[in-house]
């Protein structure tokens, strides 16, 4: 296993443009192993583009991405060890939930017994045990997203990229998924980038924080510094609640 | 590079029929092993269009039959497709619509012939049209039932609540909305009749001449150049239809089989 203190992910001077428009011109950051960087930004600020270029689904125009001290820019998508989780779960419609989660293990030609054991454990941990023979269409939104999460965890990714994965869920399921993600990524020592436009989700999920706007990425080492920056929106939010509380107590 | 070359090969194969047919239709002689015919002339075209073969009248009749079949099948199909789409036993009823495609047109023709003889429809172009209608209608219902979904039904309810009578509903809302699909349906059901040979042969009992029966006669009499010329006549209307309407073209992807998938 890599040195836990060393940076697992290192992005240097990443530059992506579509046609004439630069989405971002010079993004650099590092992420320590086993931690989660929560990135917040308005719609259309390039969050998805950033994740997709790290995963190799988009080719960056310039810059370098290193993972565990290895440059991965030139590697094809399937050799990067980076799993990208979409807003939509995108489960394979022709496979059962079990087969969806076991998909990556089957690719690695593991023995059926190992696949059964590893997948079974994951399903139990994610609370999907009773649904293993169901097809995706027969699952609820939350179950599908949990399955997609399990499918990503099963391959033991070096880096997990989450692109607003809980946006389409109802509020209760969403909160549940957030805590589940937090617990499981701690247990399994996952390194991840989590992109969201929801401030509360950002605060709940991240170990470190970042704001992406106008093509630049501002980084914050902890919740404290993040909250203090007016750009994070935390102060505005607190202001709102404070006024509401004052008003109510004034009555 | 390999892919580009493959693309060129596929394109050439798709285009090849047209120059071959045109050369054949213009060739006076084309003895083996000449790769191109010796001298070109328009004799075949003259034979076909002006001489005693009366192909002009045959073409007109085939066109008329095709248009009649297309309009009737599409109109009936559109009306029935809605009832089918909303029916409890939709899947079971759909099996009936596959039947004309699964049993061959020859078997269909043979099974209808005796009844048609009794009704004096055999050997008459109306009988042939009616038989073609059975296939074209099944096709139209399969194709058009894809149009009906919950969004359309919600619009129907909305229009009714705004005071539309059932007739106004079809005339002002449903037909205009379905227009692209209806155009594809008219085109394809026209082709079912225009391309048909088996039913014209069995039900027509050698008394109804169509462009396809004429083509077969030229072929069996060994005159491939006339058969090729006739083929060009057969290809021309659908080609025009595809060329004139690019949207029709791309919408055609959905047709023929897609809705057999139901």
């Amino acid at each position, binding site marked *: 296993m890599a040195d836990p203190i060393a940076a697992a992910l290192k992005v240097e001077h990443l530059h992506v443009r579509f046609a004439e428009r630069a989405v971002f011109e010079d993004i650099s950051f590092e992420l320590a192993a086993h931690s989660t960087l929560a990135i917040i930004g308005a719609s259309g600020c390039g969050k998805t583009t950033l994740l997709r270029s790290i995963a190799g689904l988009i080719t960056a125009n310039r810059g370098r991405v290193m993972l565990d001290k290895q440059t991965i820019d030139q590697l094809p998508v399937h050799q990067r060890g980076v799993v990208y989780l979409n807003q939509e779960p995108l489960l394979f419609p022709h496979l059962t939930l079990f087969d969806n989660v076991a998909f990556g293990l089957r690719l690695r030609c593991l023995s059926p017994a190992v696949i059964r054991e590893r997948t079974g454990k994951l399903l139990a941990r994610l609370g999907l045990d009773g649904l293993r023979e169901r097809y995706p269409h027969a699952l609820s939104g939350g179950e599908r997203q949990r399955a997609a999460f399990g499918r990503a965890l099963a391959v033991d990714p070096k880096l997990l990229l989450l692109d607003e994965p809980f946006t389409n869920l109802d509020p209760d399921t969403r909160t549940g998924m957030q805590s589940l993600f937090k617990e499981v990524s701690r247990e399994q020592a996952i390194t991840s980038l989590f992109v969201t436009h929801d401030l509360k989700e950002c605060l709940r999920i991240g170990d470190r924080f970042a704001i992406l706007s106008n093509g630049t990425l501002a980084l914050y080492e902890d919740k404290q510094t993040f909250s203090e920056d007016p750009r994070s929106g935390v102060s505005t939010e607190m202001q709102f609640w404070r006024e509401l509380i004052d008003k109510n107590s004034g009555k | 590079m390999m892919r580009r070359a493959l693309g060129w090969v596929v394109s050439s194969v798709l285009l090849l029929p047209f120059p071959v047919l045109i050369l054949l239709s213009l060739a006076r002689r084309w003895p083996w092993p000449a790769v191109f015919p010796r001298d070109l002339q328009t004799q075949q075209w003259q034979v076909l269009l002006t001489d005693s073969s009366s192909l002009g009248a045959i073409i007109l009749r085939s066109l008329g039959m095709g248009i009649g079949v297309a309009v009737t099948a599409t109109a009936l199909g559109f009306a029935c497709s809605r009832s089918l789409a909303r029916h409890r036993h939709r899947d079971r009823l759909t099996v009936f619509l596959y039947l004309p495609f699964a049993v061959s047109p020859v078997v269909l023709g043979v099974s209808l012939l005796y009844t048609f003889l009794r009704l004096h429809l055999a050997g008459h172009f109306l009988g042939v049209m009616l038989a073609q209608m059975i296939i074209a209608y099944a096709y139209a219902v399969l194709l058009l039932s894809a149009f009906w979904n919950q969004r359309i039904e919600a619009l129907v309810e909305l229009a009714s609540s705004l005071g539309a009578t059932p007739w106004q509903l079809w005339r002002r809302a449903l037909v205009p909305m379905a227009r692209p699909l209806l155009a594809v349906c008219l085109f394809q059901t026209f082709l079912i009749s225009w391309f048909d040979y088996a039913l014209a042969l069995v039900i027509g009992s050698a008394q109804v001449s169509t462009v396809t029966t004429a083509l077969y006669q030229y072929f069996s009499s060994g005159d491939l150049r006339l058969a090729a010329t006739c083929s060009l006549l057969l290809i021309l209307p*659908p080609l025009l239809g595809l060329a004139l309407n690019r949207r029709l073209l791309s919408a055609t992807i959905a047709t023929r089989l897609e809705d057999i998938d139901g």
Partner: protein
Amino acid sequence: MIRRPVSDPWIWVLLLLTAGPLLGGLVFMLLYSIGLVGLLTDGFTLRYWSYVVTDGQTWRSLLYSLFIGSASMGASLALALALQAALRDQLRRGALGSLLFLPLAVPPLTAAVLSVEIIGNGGLLSRLARAAGWISAPADFPTVLFTPSGIGIVITHMTLVTPFLLLFLIRIAANERLGELARVAETLGASPWQSWRRVSLPILLRSSAPALTVYSLALAGAFEVPLLIGAQSPAMISVFIQRRFGQFDLRTRPEAYALATLYAGLAIGVLMALSAWRARRAPCERRL
């Protein structure tokens, strides 16, 4: 959605135009073939059926049709899948995507005429082979038409079916979001080949299986192409029935009817099995 009762008049029109003539025709053919109706009937008899069922040609023709139908479909499907994988970008953009529509304007009769002129012994390919110095007479060119192997029929069907299947597969790929699912598979570690084999192919085949089965049946019952470029014997079933039926001797008619009933029964059986299979599959696996 509102469900209507069976009394909907349009449903009666539907039954009248589909089940009516087809099942009515089938019952009539059955009655004719057992001598209960017809011009020259002298009462109930099973002799036509026993003749048809014991005639080796019947089964040869049926098996031959089944073989040609599935070979045509199998070869066209394999070619269409290969072309779809190889030409993905060219099919999406550019002229090739439009050219695929051209064969839809070609009727089977014309396709058969073209086969004679292109792949026949005296056709364009044999002329080119001569020009290249590979052969010296038409007879030296491999014979594919009018032979019992039926290879010419399969090739002709392929030229008609492959472009259509390709358009069909492109459509399914778009509807099922195959591109996105393939990317998901790749981020999970699947090589392009693994992602095609484990994701794209099974989804394409599952979504198209019912349509392809009906299409195979239609190809097994094809008439024009085998009539023009097929061998005298074995004949494909439609040609076989039409020949029996078209004979001047009216006494072969009941046999032709028995044959047609037999074939229609088999085709309907396949259709019913297909429908039952879909009904069983539907609740556990319908598209998202």
